[in-house]
């Protein structure tokens, strides 16, 4: 009698804290291969790890060698990283290559990590935005175009190749130990910029809860686009206060003033193209995902903020 084959899964973005959490949850039951665009990371002897450009031909060798059953694509270069062109190549062209290969090699499950940034922060946003809302980010900043394009691409493949079983996740701000995105660096800093007079509602999800959400999504092959966010909300400036950050107000009107100041300062944790997200709320409705995948975040906001308050040094 043959032993049942463990699922083979390709996890991208392996250098990030989120991918490592996902890998740790899956490693006991699955054979994993980790890849990253940026660097090679050691994840133990049982997990082959590669630093690889998805657009290069050698990437296909991994598909031939490991005969993957599924792909968890977390390797999205964030808006604060690299140049616009390199990011576009990595996020859009890289993802296209990944999805093409997934189709060619008969992958049966694909989970793609997107971001709530695709909705764009505009003054007229309603709260509890659901998945069918238009993606306005591309019209706001050229720096967010690649995020929207990545989604569009994944959506096209979702309908064209239903056998890939693609699920796109749009999480709110992912925060917690080891997270290196803009929001996490703001919450962990001593001084955090705010736009004077603006404190939009925000949502935060703990990295462990997000890893949980990804694993749950992977295990249940339901196609579609889903927001991922807990049913809890807090104003940005209140969150900073709870994290023990000193708030540094930046003049907010007329709108050209903060843009000019931020373009001059070139703050990595408060980039000018994300200004709108610190001005207007983008509150997403995560109830469809919670229902479909029986997901309930376990770490409350207070616990998340306590971590940042007690760890003021860069994490």
């Amino acid at each position, binding site marked *: 009698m043959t032993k049942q084959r463990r699922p083979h899964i390709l996890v991208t973005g392996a250098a990030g804290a989120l991918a490592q959490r996902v890998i740790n949850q899956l490693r006991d039951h699955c054979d994993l291969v980790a890849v990253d665009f940026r660097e090679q990371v050691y994840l133990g002897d049982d997990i082959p790890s590669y630093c690889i450009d998805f657009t290069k031909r050698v990437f296909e060798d991994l598909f031939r060698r490991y005969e993957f059953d599924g792909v968890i694509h977390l390797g999205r270069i964030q808006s604060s990283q690299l140049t616009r062109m390199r990011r576009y190549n990595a996020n859009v062209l890289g993802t296209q290559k990944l999805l093409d290969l997934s189709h060619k090699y008969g992958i049966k499950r694909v989970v793609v990590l997107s971001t709530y940034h695709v909705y764009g922060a505009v003054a007229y*946003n*309603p*709260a509890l935005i659901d998945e069918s809302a238009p993606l306005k980010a591309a019209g706001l900043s050229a720096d967010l175009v690649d995020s929207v394009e990545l989604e569009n691409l994944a959506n096209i493949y979702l309908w064209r190749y239903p056998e890939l079983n693609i699920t796109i996740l749009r999480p709110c701000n992912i925060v917690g130990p080891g997270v290196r995105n803009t929001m996490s660096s703001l919450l962990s800093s001593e001084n955090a910029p705010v736009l004077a*007079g603006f404190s939009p*509602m925000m949502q935060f999800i703990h990295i462990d809860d997000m890893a949980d959400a990804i694993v749950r999504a992977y295990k249940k092959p339901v196609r579609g686009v889903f927001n991922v966010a807990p049913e809890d909300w807090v*104003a940005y400036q209140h969150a900073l206060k709870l994290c023990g950050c000193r708030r540094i107000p930046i003049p907010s009107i007329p709108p050209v003033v903060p843009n000019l100041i931020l373009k001059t300062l070139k703050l990595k944790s408060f980039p000018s193209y994300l200004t709108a997200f610190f001005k207007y709320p983008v509150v997403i409705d995560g109830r469809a995902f919670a229902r479909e995948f029986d997901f309930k975040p376990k770490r409350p906001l207070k616990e998340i903020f306590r971590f940042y308050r007690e760890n003021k040094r860069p994490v």
Partner: protein
Amino acid sequence: MSLASYLKSKLIPADINEHINRIRKPIGSLGYDPWGYNNEVMKYGFSLTRQIYEKYFRVEAHGVENVPAEGPVLIIANHSGQLPIDGLLVGYALASREQEPRIPRAMIERFFPTVPWLGNLLNEFGAVLGDPVNCAKMLANNEAVIVFPEGVRGSGKLYRDRYQLKRFGNGFMHLAMKYKAPIVPVGVVGCEETIPAIANIKPLAKALGIPYAPVAMPVVLPAKVHLNFGPPMYFDDLEIPEELVTERVEQVKAEISRLIDKGLSERKKLF
């Protein structure tokens, strides 16, 4: 005792604290809801509004018990007076009623979220950007929602046009039908006299990106305000052509007009 809690104890009487807590709004672990309503800030707002409502405008409200105790409901009123004082007073009347108080949500102009401090403050008091999606989601959440279907056409009108209802949008009726929400009409009398405007400088309003730039005295006059809440109106959710929806809107408009006339006849003097 910290300064913040000392100030809180001075500014928020115990009865208000208890009153707001008793209403039990659906909020998250830090006191916020998705639209930015905040229970603690609301207590300050309620305390301040009580003074404005009782002492400054000496509001007389009739029929506030017509608003159902629970479930989705649309409170539809005439809009006037340049600033959204009418929304504040209608909201307070419902939030402060003895029997089964509710904290309603007011739909506000699209311009407010762009105003620093004020936009957030209004959200914390329960005001919400006047977007149909917001209104729909709130009705689905069983909220009581205050809507002024005249929008800026009503609030920005001049003193010479007082108590003349402007065109009502049909959006609220579609939502009331879809979510089976009763409509409680309200006639507001007195707010027209709070900031009487004699002209609107349109080019200035355009340059500043605001809905209107009234020529008025830079004070809010203490006009006496009468609020008359009418009996709830129920509409079925049948698929009907837009002109029939407009007819239903006209029924609500006529009822508000009747309630305004009632308020005007009750009014003994302007101030």
